[in-house]
């Protein structure tokens, strides 16, 4: 009887210590993770269907059919009021030269005049530009805001870039295309 009690006396603290140790390990690993949301970047998702107006041709509508070929596409969400978009623009211009990829612009919550002015000033890397005036279409894409880009091949999103395209992501894109 007394032996049993002794055993119990020793076991409880050990269990508690082990319990806290596990918690410690979990917090320790948790520290290394970022607390800013980073969604799954490599996603094999189908392109959502959409019907949107085009920026330059007034009445023309564009649908998801434009991705229905054997080319790579980069769909780039941008806006004239977004400052990082200006930074990423030069990389898009650079990417434009590559013939294996077509860049589609996705103009987010912008005024058409400002958008056009922006492209006049910095150059137009896009083959087609669609307008998302109230930002609802971007939600269908699961997008967060501007700038954001989706790399598409055969109707599938194969990679996604949140935030501006930079030299590093440009190289990565070119590598994937090759």
């Amino acid at each position, binding site marked *: 009887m007394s032996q049993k009690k002794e055993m119990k006396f020793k076991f409880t603290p050990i269990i508690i210590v082990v319990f806290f140790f596990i918690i410690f390990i979990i917090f320790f690993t948790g520290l290394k993770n970022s607390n800013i949301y980073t969604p799954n970047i490599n996603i094999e998702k189908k392109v959502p269907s959409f019907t949107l107006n085009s920026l330059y041709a007034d009445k023309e509508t564009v649908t998801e059919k434009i991705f229905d070929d054997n080319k790579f596409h980069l769909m780039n969400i941008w806006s004239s009021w977004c400052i990082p978009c200006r930074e990423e623009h030069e990389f898009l211009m650079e990417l434009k030269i590559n013939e294996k990829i077509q860049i589609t612009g996705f103009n987010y919550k912008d005024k058409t005049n400002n958008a056009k002015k922006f492209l006049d000033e910095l150059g137009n890397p896009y083959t087609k530009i669609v307008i998302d005036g109230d930002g*609802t279409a971007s*939600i*269908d894409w*699961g997008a967060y*805001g501007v700038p954001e880009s989706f790399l598409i091949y055969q109707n599938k999103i194969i990679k996604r870039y949140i935030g501006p395209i930079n030299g590093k992501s440009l190289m990565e894109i070119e590598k994937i295309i090759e």
Partner: protein
Amino acid sequence: MRLLKIFFMISIILNFTLLKADEIKTENQIAKNLRCLICQGQSVYDSDSEFALSLKLVIKDKINEGMNEKQIYSFLEQKYGEWILYDPIFNRNTYFLWLLPLLIFLAGGAIIIKKFYIKK
């Protein structure tokens, strides 16, 4: 007996909280239960960021399309993952989240009752 009564009450109440009668407020209700993903710990309803404003429009559209609250949640969950939902879904991942506090409550009750029985 006392415990039984309490639990009976709780089960009734939990069932009733799931009933949302007021449709005018549905839209705000949904927005309040969604995390604004680009903000730091704010709900979509509370935030005035571009993302939140667009999302509120989407909620309105979806309600007009005839989707109910649950369908909208699952639509957004597909797009953005469970992270967007402030009300965690009850599934394999969250059994412990929902049940552990209740288990602790039961255990606490058991300890107190045990105390009386031993004393008697």
